[in-house]
Every structure is written in C-alpha cells, then in structure tokens.
C-alpha cells in the first residue's frame, strides 16, 4: 500500500480502482478458475493470490515496456509468452520455498498462464499505458485479487474445518461443514459474496434515488 500515499492523485486512482471499483473477481468476474479451485483454506488462497499478483505485476511491467516494439498482429501471442515465462519462474520458486504448498496448489500454479485477468490487463491496460501507471494498475488489481481470494478462503476454511490459517477457532464440538471444502462449496461461497455485493450496490442505488427525489420535492 506504499505507492498509494506517495503517488500523485491519478496514480492513486489507478491503484485504488483495482481494489474496489473494478475488483477483478467481484465486479468483472474474471479469473474464476483459481478463485474457486484453491480457496479451500485461507493459506492456499493467500499463496495463490500472491503468485498471481506477482505474475500480473511483472507481466504488466514487461508488456508496457515492450508496447512500442510489438507488432499488433502478434501481440496476444507475445503477451502469453511473457506471462508463461513469469509463471514458470513462480512455479519453480514455490517448489523451492515450500514443496508442501506446491503439492496443495498443484497444476493451478501453471494454470495462472490462462487466467483471463492477467491477459486482460496486459491487453486492456499495459499495452496502452506507461510503465509507471501499468505498475500501479498491476499492484491494485493484484491486491484486489488477493483480497477476493482471501474473502473466499477465509469463509470456506472457517465453515469447512473450523479453523483460520490452521488455527482452531471453535471447541471440540464444532461440526464441520465438509461441503464447503468440496467443489460445490466454492460455487456457493462465491454466490454468497456476489449476492452481498449486489445487495450493497442495490441499496446504494436506492438511497441515491430517494435522496434525489427528496431534493426535487
């Protein structure tokens, strides 16, 4: 969060928008596969979020610095190759840091390559903007993505195994909701969060409408 306080207003906006207004998961519904697949514990969710954010930031940097030299026809292939390179780096990095984590995340680390979020940001933002702004955009989107993954991971771990980051929260008598750890739980939790966001948006709209009417009358 350091750049937000030091950068000029426009840069701050680039950073903030990814976290809330254009949150990649809850607003754009991008990059769903890892969001649902590896969020059965908060730890996995955090690791996956960090890995994705790293790839996102690095690929945004490279794509934006190469943007003048890449011919338009082959840009998508170039972007994908850049992303694949960074994903390979992350894959080997996680394997070196924690083999256990690498096993838990499995093929989903490699599958960061096809996360539509990263290619989407490269195409829609980094290929058109300078390095500095692309970096901030990558940071913001990355933080937004990590937050979204944590939202799911925390709920699923608390309900599914009664713990948070491996710490037991409830007493012995807690009956775990096994379903939350299984694939259907991912769908249900995400549906729940989206419902909450829909409800907040609706409520804000209604309030804006009612205050608007009052001022007219």
């Amino acid at each position, binding site marked *: 969060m350091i750049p937000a306080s030091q950068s000029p207003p426009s840069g701050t906006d680039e950073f903030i928008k990814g976290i809330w207004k254009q949150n990649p998961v809850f607003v754009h519904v991008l990059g769903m596969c890892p969001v649902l697949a590896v969020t059965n514990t908060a730890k996995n969710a955090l690791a996956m979020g960090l890995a994705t954010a790293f790839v996102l930031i690095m690929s945004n940097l490279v794509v934006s610095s190469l943007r003048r030299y890449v011919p338009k026809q082959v840009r998508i292939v170039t972007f994908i190759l850049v992303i694949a390179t960074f994903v390979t780096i992350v*894959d080997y990095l996680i394997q070196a840091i924690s083999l256990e984590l690498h096993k838990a995340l499995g093929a989903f680390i490699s599958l960061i390559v096809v996360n539509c979020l990263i290619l989407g940001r490269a195409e829609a933002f980094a290929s058109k903007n300078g390095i500095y702004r692309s970096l901030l955009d990558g940071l913001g989107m990355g933080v937004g993505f990590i937050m979204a993954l944590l939202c799911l991971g925390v709920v699923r771990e608390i309900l599914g195994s009664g713990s948070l980051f491996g710490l037991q929260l409830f007493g012995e008598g807690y009956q775990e909701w096994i379903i939350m750890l299984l694939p259907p739980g991912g769908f249900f939790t995400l549906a729940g969060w989206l419902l909450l966001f829909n409800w907040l948006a609706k409520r804000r709209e209604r309030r804006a409408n009612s205050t608007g009417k009052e001022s007219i009358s």
Partner: protein
Amino acid sequence: MNSDPLWAIFLNACLINNFVLAYFLGICPFLGVSGKLATATRMGGAVTFVMVVSSMSAFGINSLLLMIDAPYLKLISFIAVIASTVQLVEMFIKKMSPALFRALGIFLPLITTNCAILGLALFQTNKGYGLLQSFVYALGAGAGFTLALVLMAGLREKLELAKTPDIVKGTVITLVLAGLLSVCFMGFAGLSN
C-alpha cells in the same frame, strides 16, 4: 508409464473428476456460453476438438522436451501450441460453417485461455499417460465439458421462466445452479471404487 485401463480413464475424466464441476477448469465459457442449448452443444464440440488435437501435440512436445532435457520449457511450448491450434480451428470453422462461426463469436478465440485445455495437457503429462491413453483422456474431458455445459444450458433455459428475485438474477443464481450440479456430480465419486 501409467497403466490405467482406457475405460477407467474415460469415466474418470468425464464423470468422476469432471473438469468443470470438480476441477473448476473452463469456468469462463461454462458461465458465458451456457445461456442457450444450441450454442452450448456447438461450443462443447469445438472445445472437445481442440482438446483432442492439443492433447496429441502436447504428448509429442513432452516426449521431445524430455529427450532434450528441458522440462522448464513445457508450459511455454504447451501454450504456444494451444494458441496455434485454436487459430487453425478458427480458420477451419470459418471456412466450413460461417453460421457456426458467427454463433460462437468471441468465445472461439477465447478457447485459448480456456484453462481446461492447458489443464488437460498438464494433467496428462503429470499422470504419465501414453499416446492412446492421452487420446482417451482428452475425449473423456471433452465429453465431460460438453455434458456439463449442456446440462447447465438446459437448466438455465428453464430458469428463464422461473420467478427469481431481482437481486439474485444473473451470475449469482447461475453460480448456485453450478454448485447444485456439482453436488450431483459428486455422487459419481462412488464409481471410482
């Protein structure tokens, strides 16, 4: 080398570990194209075809990379092959059936970023499947994807007529449906014993 029998590989990829509902691969087209039954069927066909072709190519590339001892190139070469396969399929469909080409629209190039296809290539190398096993695995995964997509499309067409509160319309109700479908598919887990 893996020695799973072919029928077990097919059943496993199609029903027990369905790519969409158990591994969460290919969620984007699953949510995006499952609005209409007809489009869903065609999309399933296109994905199955790309899966088979790219799985065969992935098998060849993997053998080659093992020969020159460069496993770290695996991911990059897989994605390059998949991207070019999709390009080929796109040109083929455009030539053979312009109507289908228009119906699939943006989702055809997006098959490239369909994680199910890259996932399939990675899983088959991790499991050490041979050529014939990879072929059957790809067929099973494609069939499973099509099945999930068609079931979902059928459900969503019915849902159009149901009375749902405004707030859950769209993605939320679709996700709940997908969750219920996923619960149903978990019943197939008993088959693996």
